[in-house]
């Protein structure tokens, strides 16, 4: 039994996702962060974050709303969306998280192979899981990592996502353990 067993991470899908993807998220979170997870729809949509000038959705207000909407028992909360996300200074992001905070968001908009017909579902699931683990890592206070194989390595493009593994490197595992120790002592 891990120190975080009594904690639960909420995954909040906004929209409809393949059941195979949703079924793969829980085990991946358990394997990486030793904690349980639940699917709880918290937001009907993210239209409030739409920017008509950019035709994209700003991820930051979604995080604020997620934090406010999440039940108190939720340890962390992550929204999974299909819309293309941005933060004002960048053209796009795969996701965003509150560093050392509660909320995170991941977009699947740029995780498809546009030329792949039919879409390669397994690859898409792997990518989405990696992005979910990466953004949740930030909520555990993990920064971007220099190790190219580490899940916390920053991805600029889809090729970077494919290149890195779905595991934390030894260094990030130690930092995660430190953070978990800190959280459980609070």
């Amino acid at each position, binding site marked *: 039994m891990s120190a975080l067993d009594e904690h639960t991470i909420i995954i909040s899908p906004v929209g409809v996702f393949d059941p195979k993807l949703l079924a793969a998220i829980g085990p991946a979170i358990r394997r990486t962060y030793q904690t349980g997870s639940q699917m709880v729809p918290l937001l009907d949509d993210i239209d409030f974050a739409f920017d008509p000038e950019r035709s994209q959705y700003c991820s*930051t207000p979604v995080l604020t709303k997620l934090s406010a909407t999440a039940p108190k028992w939720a340890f962390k909360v992550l929204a999974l969306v299909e819309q293309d996300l*941005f*933060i*004002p*200074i*960048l*053209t*796009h*992001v795969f996701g*965003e*998280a509150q*560093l050392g905070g509660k909320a995170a968001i991941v977009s699947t908009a740029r995780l498809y192979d546009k030329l792949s017909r039919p879409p390669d579902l397994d690859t898409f699931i792997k990518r989405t899981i990696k992005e979910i683990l990466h953004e949740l890592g*930030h909520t555990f206070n993990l*920064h*971007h990592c220099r190790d190219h194989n580490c899940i916390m390595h*920053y991805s*600029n*493009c889809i090729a970077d996502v494919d290149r890195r593994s779905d595991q934390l490197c030894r260094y990030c595992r130690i930092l995660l353990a430190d953070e978990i120790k800190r959280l459980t002592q609070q």
Partner: protein
Amino acid sequence: MGSTKVLIVDDELIMRESLGDWLEQDGCHVEKACSGSEALDLLKNARFDIMLLDIKMEGMSGLEVLKRVKGSEPDMAIVMITAYASVSTAIEAMKNGACDYLLKPFDPSELSLLIEKIIDSQAQASENLYLREEFKEKTRFESMIGQSGPMQTIFNLIADIAPTDSTALITGETGTGKGLAAKAIHSQSPRSQGPFVSFNCGAIPEQLVESELFGHQKGAFTDARETRKGRLEMARGGTLFLDEIGEISMRMQIDLLRVLEDRVFFRVGGTQPIEADFRIIAATNKNLAEAIKARFFREDLFYRLNVISFEMPPLRRRKEDIPLLAKHFLFQFSRETNRPVRTISRDAMDEMMLYDWPGNIRELENAIERAVVIGKEKQLMPHDLPIFHPDHIQHASGDSIREMEKNHIKYILDKNQWNIAGSSKILKIDRSTLYSKIKSYKLQKPA
């Protein structure tokens, strides 16, 4: 990017916040300013590696901030950012010292690559600066050599203390290899990827030591025309080796103690604290306990430095290492000078083993270097080693230091058929100095 300090200057809150969050996730330490004047205020009390500076701002423009900051912080990389595409503004900014230019919003990969490029080039510049300084000192680092019991103990000790970040004090006579031991500790430590910066406290006039160690801000004193990094700053992330620590003045001892206690320091004339991110290894051939009693050395600094200490054994206490060291130096110098001497004769080795080497490894190294230069045969012979020649001692003797020097120079010149280049190398003075001494002592080449 662990300790990279970034200052974001943008009058739009949302831009500052989103860029700040992104960089913090990248492990950067971020501070934000909403105007040029706020940025200048922040810079009075803090240092940054990178400034991301918006060109178009209310009040003081980004270009104005750039011009003001570049004068006092030449090493800080300034990247101009703007929502307005203007090639002429970009050119003006680059002319004034900006290192790059980005148009909002950035592609994440573009920003990521730029930050990485800046960090790499700053690390390279720091390393180059150090290498230039090191080259000036003509320091020759060799791997430590020794099979003797005392040296095996030293190797084990180094292996034990290298992984710690504790301050170390190395004692021992001149020429015993204290600098090599410090370098060995550094190369086996977690800081091995960082620079190894050495500073000889006894080699520099006292009035220059402060600026050499701490660096100075432009205008700090009459000759400070440019802001200059000191050894402490150059050692960031690595090891600072303070050789001959016993020679340092009381004033500098107080400054060093402050660095060790507070882990921050200031450039001369600077007001911004700089983090002391290095390990200190100090060395001395003096008895610091006696220096403390005589009030030449501060006791509190001694205890700060003396966290781990060990003594490098003199060569006379590890004579079994002499053959190994001698062969090593012979190989090195014969290769460097392309001279024919390849082996050491048994008689020469016997004499070397009998000698006590008061100057330790450095004396042995110099003796072999000289022997290689003047040696005519394939084997190094006893007469190639100057220290064993009674006639040399006779020639070099005299009533005054001046007379001794004159006789010694004449002896070396005669021995080398008045070859100025070869003689100056043996005497370890440059050719112009040798010429002036020949003139001053009125020495004449035999007919």
